């Protein structure tokens, strides 16, 4: 753990206590088994709002606390540990970021206080195909005197079921593949012509596919300058990666802790299995990987908070390394638990099934390795 401020330490301890006592993984399981309509428990989301988590990124003048990305990451790591479902990441993290990076003062004043008090759930809609590719935006937004008319599709939108607003990457000029010609648009989820279908995914979270057919958005819905949305989008996506990485880190660390505990208690051949050297060395490798990964995850959040020049690099580094670690760790979680790990009754599968969607979100390891190399100039 990075050298934390007193406030950050307090928030972490509070978050850990709350998820452990109030929202352990058993609650996620219950939500899944009961097919909760929003794919999260509203009482939990309300509790998070009451604890101020929805305002961590939002400056005080819009009703938040403005504590920054590392602090949000600290909380997300804890919710990631127990797979606690909520719009915390998608709305209070990425949605708020979109407004802060790309929104005008008027737009921020209009939307951010609602993100903080929970009346708004704002989520980012970028991809249109199976794999992340922000340059490939083709959803068309035709300008006229009144504003823009949107036609096209967005897929796998996080918290797309609960969302009250979408920040949509649209194409106002150029071709799919061009960085120019992309415009970010804030769309009210209830606008005519916009429909959404909820998806059933391995991680039982609230994704939706969106269909836009002639959706009208006024000038006040355009975030930033027309055709110049790629730059801000790239910056928003960096922050999406860094915060998603924090949640992944928590998920992976919990998987590590469960595995270590099992190694210390499961007896086979007359001894605890952690005493087998091959397993002991695997645990040592995983621990080393965990420590190295944590540095990347925290480093990216700190770089964002400090607005460092290397923030983009570090976000791709963080997304890749946490993705690699949660991938490896979720597989080892199953393998080391053996048969019991394969049963639905045990929690290991829940972690495995959450890991892959997190890996894929905002670009998988392969995407970010390529991006890292490009940023380094080779």
């Amino acid at each position, binding site marked *: 753990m990075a050298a934390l401020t007193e406030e950050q330490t307090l928030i972490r301890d509070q978050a850990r206590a709350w998820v452990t006592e109030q929202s352990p993984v058993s609650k996620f399981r219950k939500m899944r088994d009961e097919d909760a309509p929003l794919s999260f428990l509203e009482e939990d989301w309300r509790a998070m709002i009451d604890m101020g988590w929805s305002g961590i990124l939002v400056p005080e003048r819009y009703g938040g606390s403005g504590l920054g990305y590392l602090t949000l990451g600290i909380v997300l790591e804890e919710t990631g540990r127990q797979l606690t479902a909520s719009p915390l990441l998608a709305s209070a993290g990425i949605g708020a970021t979109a407004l802060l990076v790309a929104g005008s003062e008027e737009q921020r004043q209009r939307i951010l206080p609602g993100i903080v008090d929970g009346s708004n759930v704002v989520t980012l809609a970028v991809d249109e195909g199976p794999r992340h590719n922000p340059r490939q935006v083709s959803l068309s937004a035709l300008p006229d005197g009144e504003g823009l008319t949107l036609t096209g599709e967005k*897929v796998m939108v996080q918290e797309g079921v609960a969302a009250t607003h979408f920040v949509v990457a649209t194409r106002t000029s150029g071709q799919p593949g061009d960085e120019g010609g992309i415009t970010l648009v804030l769309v009210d989820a209830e606008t005519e012509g916009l429909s959404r279908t909820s998806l059933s995914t*391995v991680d039982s979270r609230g994704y939706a596919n969106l269909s836009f057919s002639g959706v009208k958005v006024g000038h006040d819905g355009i975030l930033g300058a027309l055709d110049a949305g790629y730059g801000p989008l790239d910056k928003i996506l960096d922050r999406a990666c860094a915060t998603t990485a924090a949640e992944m880190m928590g998920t992976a660390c919990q998987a590590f802790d469960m595995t270590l505990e099992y190694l210390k208690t499961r007896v086979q051949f007359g001894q605890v299995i952690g005493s087998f050297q091959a397993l002991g060395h695997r645990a040592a490798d995983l621990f080393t990987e965990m420590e190295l990964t944590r540095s990347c995850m925290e480093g990216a959040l700190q770089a964002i908070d400090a607005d460092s020049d290397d923030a983009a690099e570090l976000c791709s580094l963080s997304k890749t390394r946490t993705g690699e670690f949660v991938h490896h760790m979720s597989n080892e979680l199953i393998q080391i638990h053996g*048969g019991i790990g394969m049963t639905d009754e045990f929690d290991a599968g829940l972690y495995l099934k959450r890991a892959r969607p997190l890996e894929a979100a905002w670009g998988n390891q392969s995407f970010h390795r390529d991006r890292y190399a490009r940023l380094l100039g080779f």
Partner: protein
Amino acid sequence: MAEDLTSFRSQVQSWLSEHFPASLKANAAGIMESAFSENGLSSDAEQWRQDLAEAGYGAPTWPREYGGAGLSDRDAAVLSSEMAKVGAFNPIPGLAGMGVTMVGPTVLEYGTEEQKLRHLPGIASGQVRWCLGLSEPNAGSDLASLTTKAQDDGDSWTVNGQKIWTSGADRSQWCGALVRTDASAKKRDGISFLMLKMDQEGVRTKPIKLIGGASPFCETFFDDARGEKDDLLGPLNDGWSVVKRLLQHERQSQTGAGAPSGGSGGGLSLQDAAKKYVGTNADGELSDADLRARLTSHLMAARAHAMTGSRIRAEAKGKVEVSAAASILKNSATLVAQARSELTIEMMGNQGLGWEGDDFTAEELATVRGWLSGKAMSIYGGSFEVQKNIISKNILGLPETTQKG
């Protein structure tokens, strides 16, 4: 009996043209699905099963007197290749559960003449389905620490305890169970292999839901279940030898890197599926160069695995010995299949994350379920770690550690 390969081949060809119903052509999945549905086998399929059984082709290498056809391995391979040519499929191993692949070969080796005559024909005809009761909740890789007890009641055995991972137990007629018959002996020395009827009051089964959804696995509870005295396979208290052999037959059956259930895009090769989901650049190369490199390494590993199976069979002149080589092949099959699943999920992106519903194709959903259920490959049938112990000890001759296992 076939005189030589050519005449046996033509004999098989004419037998197939006479007996194999066109309606069943290239429909293995359909046959097995109906077999386990309420309706059971279609009349064509049932006739085909009977014809196979009559010819002894359900378990073709078994002796004729036990329901086989007494074929050599070479002739069996001819039979199998001729069947494949006409799109025919032998449903009997599937119908018999663990019967043809594991129980039968072990009974052939350890059974009395009476046991062979009583049990094998039912298996070879696909009419009697078998499961195996080996693992227990607290005895996973450490099989020998099992506690299910069989008590000698004079004219029968009374069995109490619990088994887990009894695949297909809920629809089997018989179970081959490993039971403790001498509690005072050392762990491996007080175990026997007992064949038990499943249809009796003292036996209860409960299916296990797995991370990929429903599964063939059960928990099986024995509560004063009865076993006949003459259904003990092999010597009393030497069940460990029997099961070791049985597990070799199991490993044997798991050495092919079969596709995990569910394809990735309409029977496409992995590389073509990748092109479909990921796209290509101007040179026709996969757009994601990092994935392309990893996919290439995977395809190379898969080919190396397949070539190794062929090579070992060629060296053994047609039959893979039930041997150490099986451990290598089992682990490499597992690595290849699990890596393929992971790569497939990865390349499919969002479409590789579906659980159910219309937004994903049936194949996409099957791929995801197959990815999850395939995680078991490295756990069951002697885990990845156990196979490595076997390789290091039995093949390489490295000394056993002071640790067991």
